[in-house]
């Protein structure tokens, strides 16, 4: 057993090394940058940068918009993916082919999609095209995940439930939902994490670093500070964003454990 454990640990080393090199160390460096005056003087200033960023009107606006994206677009994304997965499940024979079709939005370059989007929405300056673009780009992955979860459900359970008189909506509410709740929560978490990364879509759609107020998200805030060489604001905002995502993920994982049958 000891040898087995040792082997496992040894096998983990390469991946841990990669994670440490490409994620942990850069993140530690970002934290370091958020605590100094600037990358040239390197004077330690404590949480001053965080205070400055948090008091900033535009950081708050960006945070609000990013959270709104989670509250509005993520539920729509998950529900749509859930319903489409159910639909695909019923379309026996062809569903595999259709499932592949839902992967296409992920393969098509965002720049090409944006051209179509701008034509479709006639260059509308509202927030909805970006929300829809976010849903369009990510729905394929969620459908794959949910379809995989559906495929693990055993027919016997449904048969037994049907014998007990359950059907239609009740069947899914009482059987399907509880059984796939871990995957469902996972898809919500993926949606949340991806929503924080929405930038390319919006940037290409509006074509500027200063989009309408409603679409100015945290990624814009960080990107603009990158171009202004203000690494301290950028690093502080990045750390705060990662903390928010971490809190959401921890809550999600706890809920997932709670609902796991």
């Amino acid at each position, binding site marked *: 057993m000891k040898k087995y454990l040792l082997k496992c640990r040894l096998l983990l080393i390469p991946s841990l090394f990669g994670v440490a090199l490409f994620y942990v160390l850069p993140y530690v460096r970002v934290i370091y940058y958020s605590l100094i005056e600037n*990358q040239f003087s390197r004077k330690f200033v404590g949480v001053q940068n965080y205070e400055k960023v948090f008091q900033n*009107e*535009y950081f708050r606006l960006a945070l609000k918009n990013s959270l709104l994206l989670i509250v509005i677009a993520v539920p729509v994304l998950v529900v749509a993916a859930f319903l489409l997965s159910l639909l695909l499940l019923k379309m026996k024979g062809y569903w595999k082919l259709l499932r592949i079709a839902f992967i296409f939005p992920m393969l098509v370059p965002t720049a090409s999609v944006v051209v179509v989007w701008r034509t479709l929405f006639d260059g509308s300056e509202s927030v909805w095209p970006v929300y829809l673009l976010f849903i369009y780009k990510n729905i394929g992955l969620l459908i794959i995940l949910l379809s995989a979860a559906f495929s693990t459900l055993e027919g016997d359970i449904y048969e037994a439930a049907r014998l007990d008189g359950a059907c239609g909506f009740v069947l899914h509410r009482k059987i399907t939902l509880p059984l796939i709740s871990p995957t469902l929560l996972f898809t919500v978490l993926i949606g949340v994490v991806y929503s924080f990364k929405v930038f390319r879509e919006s940037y290409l759609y509006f*074509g*500027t670093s*200063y989009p309408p107020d409603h679409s100015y998200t945290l990624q814009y805030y960080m990107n603009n500070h*990158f*171009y202004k*060489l203000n690494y301290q604001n950028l690093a502080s905002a990045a750390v705060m964003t990662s903390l928010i995502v971490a809190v959401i993920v921890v809550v999600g994982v706890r809920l997932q454990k709670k609902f796991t049958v």
Partner: protein
Amino acid sequence: MKGKKTKKTKKKWLAVWGVIGLLFAGCGKTQTPPETQNPGEVTGVPEDTLLGYTYSKIYAPYQLGTCDVKAELVEPEDSELMVTKLLAGDSDYDFMMLSTDSSLATDILRTGAYYALNEIPEVAGLLDRYHDYIKEAATAENGDIWMIPCGVNVPFVLYREDVCEEFGLDFDNMTYTEFLEQVEALPKNGEHTFFTPYGLMTGDITSKFEQVYGYENMSESEKSLLRNYMEKMRVYDVPFNEGKWWFLSSEKTVSHLSEESMKKMIFELERSDNMTLSISLDFFRIDGFRAIELPDLEEGVDCPSGATVYFIVINPKSAKLEQTIEYVSQLCEKLQKDTSLPFRWMSRGEDFSDNALRQDIYRLISEAEVYATYPYDVVGAELMAYREGKQDFDTMITEIQRNIKMYKEE
């Protein structure tokens, strides 16, 4: 029995790893893997040569490579590489060559991302040679000398004195409105040429507007003035090669103008650095050309020409900092003695009385001023959207003001 099997397995694995190892070793000997590099990353600069990055090599003074310390100026394919390198505090480049109208320059000054040059006596000596406003631009608010000016660029109207007289054109004390009206009234018979490049015309008028008024708190009269110019630009400044103002004889391109046709040219909008580039026509060779500042926006609102200064800024994190400082000292010493036209134009007390055109340009450069500009995304993109009819005037102003607020306060 079990032990034997394990030993055999171990030997097997050893053999497999040995073969893999040999394969790798063989690969190393027979085939050199291609060098991996970031997009735009520079390789191949010798160890003893300093590396400088620039957006455009075209304005670099030729003296860069003539010091004892060797230096190479490189224009990365991906210009964002320069921002990334600066941000990351990279030590593998030694200096940058930028211009004061780039937002990167403003950001370097604001964030203190430069090596202060106050301790280098040759730098102070060189700055003393230059016009006061150039010296001011090279000095930060805290007194740091943050850059070494290597060139200056000023826009102006280049015109033929005799031809303008013939058409009754007097650029002196002319507003842009009058200028455009007079140009519109010029005969379009193809005999005479006048040259209004799209970029220069629009860019210079809007730059001038930015220089004089700004956009942040525009009054109604300023708004109407801008609307007037923008409308005129929209009507008159048509795309390259389709211009109704292009009357370039039979050759079609400016570079093929003959001496004879140059004498028939009425005017063109020019920049001082173009006049010294080898690709430019030698206007100094032909008598009768004069230069005057761009027309004023409003009568009575006098505005000096807006100058762009090209400069070198040292990477404070350079791995070859000492060598770079030595290089800068040598460069400044050389530039102090430089008698080429671009440096004479930047210097105080020069005399160009032997050539009227040179004297005009020198006067314009001497009286110019450096002013800060906003990044393209903040102002330029909105002006362009209006010109292209994608948004109305009031929306453009609202958007510019919103962008400026966001740019300054975010």
